[in-house]
């Protein structure tokens, strides 16, 4: 059995070696297609991570109506803390708000001269539990906060979250539509190259049949060939993507480089790389399956 399996693998490598140029060109085409696909995956992945970072920092600010009695504020503070998903609530008085503004303006704080704290509304700074820091669950909490009439306005950067979520969704959609088209093209290319390979080995395959080689012995090396083409092509694509990202990072303008300190750009994590590699191999396998179905009929 071990000998038989070794023989199948050896035959697959011999087939590749014997038809090196068609195989290399297929690997190249797979690499280009997978590079496009994995580039989209990388962009979508980084946008997704950015949203996660942003969501982790998300905080809800609920502005109180001016003139809300302090006793009511205390009760409201207690009730707000009781809402599920809220980690902590901090009351920001108009004085605190003015102090915060002054600290933000730094050297220009004299701009606030003459402004009375009373014009700034008091607010609650609400920190959410980690698992509630996503757009769906925030909306649940917001709707519960809105039930308290003492709140005049509730802010949580919804527009940003929605816009970014839509962007990531669009990226994912593009990735799969474009990816789907590329994948079909890849199957077509792989099956055609393998047909060339099969055609070049027509005599050998004919003799294999004449002397009684089993269908497994004839077909499996062809499937392995497709599998290896997929693996090498996708591996090359991942490597090229890594190189491209490294080169791009080196040549980023300094203004954008500063941004990347706060929002780091990651390469694809190992589990996604593994998924892409397996995907590439399966495509290769499928392409070779089509090629063998077209060319190798049992009993010929």
């Amino acid at each position, binding site marked *: 059995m071990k*000998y*038989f399996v070794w*023989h199948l693998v050896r035959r697959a490598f011999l087939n590749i070696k014997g038809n090196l140029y068609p195989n290399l060109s297929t690997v190249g085409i797979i690499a280009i297609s997978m590079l496009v696909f994995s580039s989209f995956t990388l962009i979508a992945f980084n946008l997704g991570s950015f949203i996660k970072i942003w969501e982790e920092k998300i905080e809800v600010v609920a502005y109180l109506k001016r003139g809300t009695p302090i006793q009511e504020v205390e009760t409201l503070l207690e009730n707000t803390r009781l809402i599920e998903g809220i980690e902590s609530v901090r009351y920001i008085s108009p004085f605190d708000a003015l102090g915060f503004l002054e600290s933000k303006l730094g050297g220009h704080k004299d701009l606030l001269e003459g402004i009375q704290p009373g014009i700034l509304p008091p607010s609650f700074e609400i920190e959410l539990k980690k698992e509630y820091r996503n757009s769906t669950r925030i909306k649940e909490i917001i709707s519960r906060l809105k039930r308290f009439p003492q709140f005049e306005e509730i802010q949580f950067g919804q527009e940003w979250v929605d816009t970014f979520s839509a962007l990531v969704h669009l990226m994912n959609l593009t990735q799969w539509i474009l990816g789907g088209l590329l994948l079909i093209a890849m199957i077509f290319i792989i099956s055609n190259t393998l047909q060339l390979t099969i055609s070049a080995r027509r*005599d*050998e395959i*004919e*003799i*294999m*049949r*004449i*002397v*009684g*080689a*089993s*269908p497994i*012995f004839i077909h499996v090396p062809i499937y392995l060939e497709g599998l290896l083409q997929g693996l090498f092509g996708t591996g090359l694509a991942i490597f090229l993507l890594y190189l491209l990202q490294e080169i791009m990072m080196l040549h980023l303008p300094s203004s954008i480089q500063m941004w990347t300190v706060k929002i780091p750009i990651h390469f694809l994590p190992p589990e996604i790389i593994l998924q892409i590699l397996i995907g590439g191999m399966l495509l290769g396998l499928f392409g070779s399956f089509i090629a063998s179905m077209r060319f190798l009929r*049992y*009993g*010929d």
Partner: protein
Amino acid sequence: MRCYLTSLFFLKKNEPRDNFLKMIKMSHVYKVYPTQIEALSDVNLEISDGEFTYIYGASSSGRTTLIRILYGAEKPTRGEVIVNGMDITAKGFNKIHLLRRSMGIVFQDFKLLRDRTVSENISFALEVIAYQKKEIRKRVSEVLEKVGLHQRAKDPILALSAGEQQRVAIARALVNNPPLILADEPTENLDDQMADEVMRIFTDLNQKGTTIILATHNKELIQRYPYRVIYLLGGRVDLKTKGEQKEGE
């Protein structure tokens, strides 16, 4: 005897014991190609284990179709074909590779791998059915001795004459020690001397118990090596004119 052993695996439960002694049995076999050309029509024949039989006929008589049916390259349109105990026309029969391992096939055009040596061509037949290297070496050496080419084992195929190439093809057919040899016009591209060498190998094999079925249109060959002849005419076994008879009867 070898045929009986392989037959044990394939003979059906209620099959007549007589089939056991037959290497080939064809009953009411028809072959009509999609172009409506009728290559074989109601062919009935039996060939016993250890027989040397010619399938004789002119061009388009159906002899190649008959040979192709015997090794499973063509499916008959109708009829029953039993080869070496296997009913290859049975519904769902999917053991063509096992059928072919139980026979050696020799072609007019040799069907050798032109980019390989003599011994590589022969060992290929065993490699693809997963023989161990040691066993392959032993068998290749034995079979090359049998066909008188042991001195040329490492020569490339293209360095050999047509007769030698045909002997390599015969060696490849023999290397798995099959009980049956099918040969389709094996002497067609050879001069008389080379044809004689090939025929001597077949005769030797037959004397040692191998069933030989040789398709030819060469009357002279049949006269020089007289064995049983099955005449084919227009896709039918021609019983009216010459009949199925032993040459010289």
